[in-house]
């Protein structure tokens, strides 16, 4: 039976000249990265209370009733708390945006007691719009938020550093540079997307970016593994052709895994509710970017740098992990 299973429809042998367009892709990537970095400062990341400190409260009324956002805003603004954000969100139980649930974010002014301020806000809201339930309340002090931010950035830095070391150890320094440039590219662009979509940058978002790092490395390693294998197999083939060949050979896997991951994350974004929405969107785009970068950033960087072919074939045998031995 032709065409079943469907994988047979995917051409076994593709001949895309990826490297030919690498220059164009490189320029595009550089431009996008610069735009993303600039956007992180202007307009800047939408910092959640995890990193900025302050309070967030989720208020809801029974389904069918409406919380008047204007009145909430007005009531809370009267408390002199500075910038207060009030935003309607979808109901948690039905996932329907019927105006019965809202989220409030505000800063606790320096020197005022958190608990007291939260109580005041609760009082003001009840007065303005009547009985409401407070389903989720988070208050983060400025000291803790600063620490969380530092440790979040540190985690990202350490992750990239360790990945570099890992690739260096398993492959060649050139491969390591290629992988790290690819990683930086992915992280920067993911941040750019977080800014573009105005997603809240929270602790969960750091987890998302770290996962993007893990996935992007995963993708890069698969391509690099094949590249190393082909470099040994075709000792005289020009480097750019070996890269093209390796990318083509791993293309079907790249597409299948990427599509699976993206579909699953889309399901998460749609059904996971408010709390996981930003997280899954960031992951989804991160994975798309990661897939792109392992084709157009990681491998072409190696071309730019060059590889000592002889050395690779003879001296630098890959480290044996003892798992791939034949019986």
């Amino acid at each position, binding site marked *: 039976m032709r065409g079943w299973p469907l994988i047979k429809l995917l051409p076994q042998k593709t001949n895309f000249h990826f490297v030919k367009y690498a220059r164009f892709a490189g320029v595009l990537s550089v431009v996008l990265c610069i735009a993303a970095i600039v956007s992180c400062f202007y307009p800047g990341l939408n910092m959640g209370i995890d990193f900025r400190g302050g309070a967030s409260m989720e208020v809801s009324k029974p389904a069918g009733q409406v919380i008047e956002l204007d009145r909430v805003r007005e009531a809370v603004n009267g408390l002199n708390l500075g910038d207060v954000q009030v935003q309607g969100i979808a109901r948690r139980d039905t996932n329907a945006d019927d105006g019965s649930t809202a989220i409030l974010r505000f800063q606790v002014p320096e020197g005022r007691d*958190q608990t007291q301020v939260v109580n005041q806000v609760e009082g003001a809201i009840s007065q303005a719009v009547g009985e409401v339930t407070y389903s989720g309340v988070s208050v983060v002090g400025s000291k803790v938020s600063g620490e969380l931010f530092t440790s979040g950035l540190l*985690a990202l830095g350490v992750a990239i550093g360790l990945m570099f070391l890992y690739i260096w150890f*398993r492959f060649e320094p050139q491969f390591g540079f290629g992988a790290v440039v690819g990683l930086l590219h992915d992280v920067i662009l993911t941040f750019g997307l977080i800014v573009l979509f105005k997603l809240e940058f929270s602790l969960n978002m750091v987890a998302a970016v770290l*996962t993007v790092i*893990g*996935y992007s490395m995963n993708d890069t390693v*698969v391509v690099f593994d094949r590249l190393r294998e082909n470099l040994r197999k075709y000792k005289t083939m020009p480097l750019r052709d070996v890269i093209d060949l390796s990318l083509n050979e791993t293309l079907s896997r790249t597409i299948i895994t990427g599509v*699976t991951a993206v579909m699953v994350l889309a*399901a998460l974004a749609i059904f996971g509710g408010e709390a996981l929405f930003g997280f899954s969107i960031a992951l989804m785009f991160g994975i798309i970017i990661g897939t792109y970068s392992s084709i157009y950033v990681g491998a072409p960087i190696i071309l730019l740098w060059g590889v000592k072919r002889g050395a690779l074939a003879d001296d630098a045998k890959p480290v044996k992990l003892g798992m791939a031995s034949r019986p």
Partner: protein
Amino acid sequence: MIQLSRWKVILVVVAAVFGCLLAFPNLLSDSQRAALPGFVPKNKLNLGLDLQGGSYLLLEVDVPAMREKRVTNLIEDVRVTLSGAGIATNGFQREAGGVIATLANPAQSDAAFKALQQLGGQAGPGGQVERTASRIGDNRVRFAYTDAALNGMGATAVDQSIEVVRRRIDSLGTREPSITRQGTDRIVVQAPGESDPTKLEEVIGQTAQLTFQMVDVENSVTEAQAGRVPPDSELLVGEDGTPYLVKKRVLVSGENLTRAGVGSDQSGRPAIDFRFDGAGARRFGEATAANLQKPFAIILDGKVISAPTIQSAITSGSGQITGQFSIQEAATLVNLLNGGALPAPLNVEERRTVTAELGADAVQAGALSTAVGFGIIVLFMILAYGFLFGGVSVVGLVLNGVLIVAAMSLTQATLTLPGIAGLILTFAVAVDANVLIYERMRDEARSGRSVIASMDAGFNKAMGTIIDANLTTLVAAGIMFVFGEGPVRGFAWTLTIGVFTSVFSSVLVAQVLLGYWLKTAKPKKLPIAE
């Protein structure tokens, strides 16, 4: 490698059996689980606070404030000791850990030093001398906490605070609270379920520092209100706002309390009965005997509750606090007093509350998206690789899911909302191992190898890549675990467990099942190749 080896079959079967056994309790209700015989594992998934609802409080022990207070008490001790010994002073100079007293008459320097040495000779709660006296020049004496005592105060205070917080939360009847130390001066309180966070915070936030101090009757309250507070007194307010001028020196404090209970005063209003320990009873007896017909103040957390006049020396060690209490207030206060005072104020640095309903909604959303995600992967794999190869990865995926639930139940790792996301992503990445293997097989088949050879090569050659790829995920998870907090850690843990179970189930299950297929069907052609 593709040949069916016995140990692989046994390993897969054993893992599947144990996995099912460990994951099984999650399907039961609580009463059904309780009825299970003792040798059967009973643990369910341990849901994080974001999924089951509850409160998270990060408290910081205000050690500097406690030190300040201790030093204030020390200064008052010095003041009373020196004046008791008939030594006149020209002034007190406060410093970080103690005080320097300037004597009016340098000739009394020896006497002052001796008196203070005696004061310092009394061992503190730690059983060691905490305060020492020294002479500076002719006419000054210094009395201060030793460096060891000052440094030790923080650690002791945090330990004591944890104990006190635990007793107080237990008195609320909160289910399984977790109270742990974080860093040097922080405490994390996690109370699951429907506990009222405001009540929790109220109970934890109150220092419950009970002190008995004399009322300063020699100076006028109005003078003090105008800003002229005598150096050895302080201006406090009562519950109803009445100002009181009170001597700073603490006669007896809540630390000497052995038991408090709700009682009633002569007119039948709620009051608090208390009893002192031996040292407290002696000190209280001496103080009351020396101050007959003078008022003293009973102070709780800086507020005067009542200021009765001493009618007779109270040597029995028991007494009653009357005030404007409701029954509830009296009961709460009794609980706090019995739980002990916090050695230092606790500041709430971070607070997260999720109601049980919100948690249940999150579980529902998580379960729905897991189911949909799982369905998508199953559908996709079967469409892409057919019922045999696709089906094999689906079997691996199911076993993977069971093993993850089993491992999380066994280790009681916390499953959080991002953890559920990690779980779904793990499924997607688990399939990646199968895809890598199958694509390799297709490659090998295309280059003209036999079915058995290409399958063998597929497993062998893909293995290195699979390990490389999963190690990178492990590294990322490890970093999240080290640097992350709460929910992020849950995510990292789920990811880590997932890496191990997914490599195991996608590779080994595929080897066993496809090996069996190879043996029985003796195929001429690889179904996934052209």
